[in-house]
């Protein structure tokens, strides 16, 4: 508001001048010399005299770049060109403006003082994000992602060039971009979701956030961005609303996860819990993909090895890589206090009878259980159980996991919950069946124990169904899932093949036999 009179024209003239500066054949040296001359011109026009004026200049210049792209797109729509459009024409105004911005950022203050540079970067990022959200609101389905995609992409590439002045601020630059991508995440700008994923999955961005940033300091930010994506996809996938636009985004997400599985499996190992907390239960392949990740330095024994002694594997006693912050996933509350009290004293028994009501959600259409609380309780109780067993100098196995406060809680889930509640509980357990580690081992024993001790065939049927639906999916399959199922169908103490549900229909019988054949 209250732009000084003439600022719009001034900005337009300066942008045109800058484009002419860039259009003359230049070397690096000449660009730098001309840039200094140009900065002097900006100064003469009062653009650099105050933070407020720079902000206004950036805001107006950004708006002109966006309008330029809309104009070109509109022209092409009204008068379609005879030959396929060369995309470069859409980029030139955005690219030249970002070139100016990048030079301003790099040359603001001396390299020893990063703050003014980062302020300028955050300013332009905030302006681009602000225009995007405003435009998204105003243009509705006529919103175009192209100008914003281009501005952000080129700015990211420029800010990550191998230049000493940038290397000192790489992490702050990355943080600024991650914050911006959160502000314009798909839930806030649905019309930008494809360009958003293109930016998040861009090779230069993945390289910076997952590969070159030291001590994996970018991993947490990247996991937050992926969780934003899962949150956005959730309602459409949960309702299998798989129209082409959703399917495109879903398949694009699968592809990105495949690249991460191949190149950064430890990243998926570390953040699997948060991802599976958001991915809807019916997205079995996507969840299997995440749970299949294992550290690259680990050699997985073939799950089909005859007489594989899982409990003798060296890794099986080691905790998984990721340190889960229980305070985050299970915030302190009366329920948490009661849970800890019960785990400690295996009393009062009323805790068990109230467990179901603690897990249930009232007046929320389509949701009867707080599956995220259930996931957290299962993981927390399981982790406590392992520690408890270890504190007695034992290791988790089919006998040491029994008759404990921890197993009381799990058996209560199987006995006292309805089909849906039990399905969600079993999913929470199966989400821990991953590569060889102490959690995989404990929860594998836990599932087999619940099957063996089940007080009804329905429980055994649901355990089988939950395992089966994860196995009949296209690959990949988590190692822990395979070894658990193989044990269930091979070990005679579970009398698996005697159950009616194994023979209930030809397809099911065939399915079990084919899985058994591949296992045995």
């Amino acid at each position, binding site marked *: 508001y209250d732009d000084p009179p003439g600022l719009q024209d001034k900005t337009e003239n300066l942008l045109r001048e800058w484009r002419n500066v860039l259009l003359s054949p230049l070397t690096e040296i000449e660009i730098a010399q001309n840039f200094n001359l140009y900065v002097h011109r900006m100064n003469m026009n009062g653009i650099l005299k105050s933070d407020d004026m720079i902000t206004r200049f950036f805001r107006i210049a950004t708006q002109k770049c966006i309008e330029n792209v809309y104009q070109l797109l509109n022209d092409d729509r009204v008068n379609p060109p005879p030959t396929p459009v060369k995309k470069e024409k859409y980029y030139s105004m955005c690219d030249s403006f970002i070139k100016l911005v990048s030079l301003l950022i790099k040359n603001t203050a001396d390299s020893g003082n990063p703050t003014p540079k980062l302020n300028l970067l955050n300013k332009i990022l905030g302006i681009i994000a602000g225009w995007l959200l405003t435009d998204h609101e105003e243009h509705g389905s006529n919103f175009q992602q192209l100008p914003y995609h281009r501005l952000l992409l080129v700015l990211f590439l420029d800010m990550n060039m191998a230049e000493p002045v940038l290397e000192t601020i790489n992490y702050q630059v990355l943080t600024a971009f991650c914050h911006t991508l959160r502000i314009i995440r798909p839930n806030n700008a649905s019309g930008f979701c494809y360009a958003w994923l293109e930016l998040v999955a861009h090779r230069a961005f993945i390289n910076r956030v997952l590969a070159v940033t030291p001590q994996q300091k970018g991993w947490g930010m990247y996991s937050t961005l992926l969780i934003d994506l899962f949150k956005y996809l959730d309602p459409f996938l949960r309702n299998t609303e798989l129209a082409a636009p959703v399917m495109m985004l879903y398949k694009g*997400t699968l592809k990105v996860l495949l690249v991460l599985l191949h190149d950064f499996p430890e990243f998926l190992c570390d953040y699997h819990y948060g991802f599976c907390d958001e991915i809807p239960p019916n997205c079995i*392949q996507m969840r299997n993909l995440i749970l299949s990740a294992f550290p690259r330095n680990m050699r997985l024994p073939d799950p089909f090895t005859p007489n594989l002694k899982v409990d003798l594997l060296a890794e099986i006693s080691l905790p998984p890589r990721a340190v889960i912050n229980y305070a985050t996933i299970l915030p302190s509350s009366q329920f948490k206090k009661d849970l800890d009290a019960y785990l400690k004293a295996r009393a009062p028994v009323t805790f068990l009878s109230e467990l179901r009501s603690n897990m249930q959600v009232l007046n929320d259409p389509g949701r009867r259980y707080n599956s995220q609380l259930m996931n957290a309780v299962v993981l927390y109780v399981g982790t406590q159980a392992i520690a408890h067993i270890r504190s007695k100098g034992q290791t988790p196995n089919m006998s040491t996991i029994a008759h404990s406060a921890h197993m009381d809680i799990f058996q209560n889930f199987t006995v006292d919950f309805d089909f849906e509640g039990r399905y969600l509980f079993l999913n929470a357990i199966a989400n821990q069946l991953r590569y060889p580690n102490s959690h995989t081992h404990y929860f594998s024993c836990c599932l087999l124990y619940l099957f063996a001790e089940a007080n009804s065939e329905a429980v055994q049927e649901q355990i089988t169904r939950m395992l089966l639906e994860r196995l009949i999916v296209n*690959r990949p399959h988590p190692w822990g899932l395979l070894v658990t199922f193989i044990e269930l169908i091979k070990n005679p103490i579970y009398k698996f093949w005697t159950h009616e549900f194994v023979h209930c229909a030809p397809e099911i019988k065939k399915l079990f036999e084919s899985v058994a054949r591949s296992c045995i």
Partner: protein
Amino acid sequence: MIPNQFGIVGLLTFIRAAETDPSLVSLALGQDLTALGLNLNSPDNLYLTFAGPWADTPCRPQDLDYHVPPEYLINGSIREKLAPLRLSRYKEDLLFYLFYCFVGDVLQIAAAAELYNREWRYHMEEKVWISQAPGMPMVEKTTTYERGTYYFFDAHNWRKVAKEFHLDYSKLEGRPQLPPHV
């Protein structure tokens, strides 16, 4: 048995739905992830040439972003003043480079057309370029095939290799057609 979607019958119903409603099933039975255009068996990292969530093939060399001195870059102001590409003026080496590096681009077809003009032929099954080896006699020739010694262009070692070959005319590509607007 459990009468709802949480039991085996529920899963069975779902599996049977696979025949009628593939989209319903694509989340749960999933798809063949090896068919998404990613070389999952690659010993190298994929992300550096990952062309994005919507691309079916990895980046080509020229698509990657690395620092290049501005002197090497063609400036927008002089682009139109430069002589247009004339493939007939370039040696075979460059034509093969354009063919193998500009995949999915008009240039790949243009390079193929120029190679065809220079008596190279593309074997659609072997996926290689072949030309007559001068001075090497034909061993056998019929209306449908011939046998003799030919030059193959070996793109991995980037050189011409002479080889005896049974050349089935039906496997040779005809003259490459450039898209109308080019």
